[in-house]
């Protein structure tokens, strides 16, 4: 699913955010990426979603080489990946329902299917009763779950999350972890960047550690 060989990322300005990263993630795996702040976790996720391009090395995601992916193919490439953003990135002038429906509308899904699929995703994150509300009226944890519903509504084979439990209490973050575990059990490849040790311990999945732009440890695929 994801294959990085000798991948480097240098930001304009000369800062090396990733150095010589080698990484293989099989379809259906669940992997945590951890490391101190500034280690390059978000950068790794940005490479995988083609927000940034690798400076050097071979990065293949979903069978596409990110260095050679033409600009106009990027939207189609991204449709295969669900992303949960740390800052949610919700549209505040649209209802919860409309926010979750956006990926379906963007991909031109059959309009008759949209309500059913949106409600299925909202049901999964336990927000079915709030579909008509605006994100601004929701708590941080609820907004995060709207973001998760939007990430999975298209049933992408690969799910990424950047600090999904960044600023919510431990009970809520446990619930969110359970959601991700659930997707993992349904065969979705899940990749979570976090420095929440509690979360990592509880999940008991493969952990990759970044340190100053380099991959320093990999616990290997979980049993």
């Amino acid at each position, binding site marked *: 699913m994801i294959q990085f060989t000798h991948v480097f990322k240098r930001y304009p300005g000369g800062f090396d955010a990733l150095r010589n990263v080698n990484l293989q993630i099989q379809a259906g795996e669940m992997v945590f990426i951890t490391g101190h702040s500034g280690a390059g976790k978000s950068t790794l996720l940005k490479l995988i979603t083609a927000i940034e391009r690798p400076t050097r090395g071979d990065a293949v995601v979903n069978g596409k080489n990110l260095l050679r992916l033409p600009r106009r193919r990027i939207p189609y490439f991204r449709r295969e990946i669900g*992303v949960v953003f740390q800052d949610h990135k919700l*549209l505040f002038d649209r209802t919860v329902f409309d926010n979750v429906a*956006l990926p379906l509308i963007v991909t031109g899904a059959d309009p008759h299917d949209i309500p059913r699929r949106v409600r299925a995703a909202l049901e999964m994150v336990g927000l079915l009763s709030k579909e008509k509300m605006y994100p601004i009226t929701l708590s941080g944890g609820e907004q995060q779950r709207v973001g998760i519903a939007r990430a999975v509504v298209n049933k992408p084979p690969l799910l990424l999350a950047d600090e999904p439990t960044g600023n919510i209490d431990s009970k809520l973050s446990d619930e969110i972890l359970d959601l991700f575990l659930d997707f993992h059990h349904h065969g979705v490849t899940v990749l979570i960047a976090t420095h929440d040790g509690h979360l990592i311990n509880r999940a008991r999945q493969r952990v990759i550690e970044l340190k100053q732009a380099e991959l320093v440890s990999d616990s290997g695929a979980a049993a």
Partner: protein
Amino acid sequence: MIKNYFLRHAQVFFYTLGQLTRTPVATFLTVAVIGITLALPAGLYVAIENVQRLARGWEDNGQISLFLKQDVPGSSIEKLAEKIRRLPAVSWVDYVSRDAALAEFKRLSGFGEALNALDRNPLPALLVVHPAAAYSHPDKLQTLLKDLRRYNEVDLAQLDLDWVRRLHAMLELARQGVLILAAGLAVAVLLIVGNTIRLAVLNRRDEIEITKLIGGTNAFIRRPFLYAGTLQGLLGALLAWLLLALGLLLLSGPVDNLAGLYGSRFEAENLGFLATLTLIGSGGLLGWLGSRLAVGRHLRAIEPR
């Protein structure tokens, strides 16, 4: 599939319409500026068309007026008329005697009482020469005019077509002017729409960024902006048409009066069907193009980070 395609476009259309009505003042201002900008060349075009239509009525009586000297007796006039009538270039000749001229002048000018005060008729006798159709070319008319001037009895020979011709030349020039003006104002409309769309794009920066993140193509993101630009262009053109109609309505009274003075029943007409289509079409096209240019440039600048 096809049905869904249209359904999606209809959705975008109504979504865009909703967005436009949510900011009524901004939308109205843009539409008003486009409307006034389009009304300018369209109004000039209407004016030229009407003057030209008016002039066409006069063109048919391409004729030469021979004003005779005061002292020529009636019998010589009859003889002269007969002579001219036999020229191959002439189709027929009307004789307006001095008395008849005076009577008509009294009738038309309304100066009847004043003229009664004159002790003698100041008007000359007039022969109106209608050229044969085969001789209606300007050069041949000029030759005929020169020939007619040579008669001793003739005081003044005047080709009435001259000023019509000059008018036509001037109208042609004005028409070119309108074209150039229209081209300049079309660029203005492009800039207006472009600027409006630029602001709309910047206002919805987050939405565009998020849409790109979840796999929206540029075409998908562009679509509502193109609809907005096209719609505003169309509405502007519609407004331009209404402005013209209003202008003509306001002018219809004075035009009626003026036409009445000339004994004509001329009525100013608005743009014809084709010209109206052209106006509306240009509005839509300029709106589309303006938004396409703006959105293409600004979309590239918004990449997710």
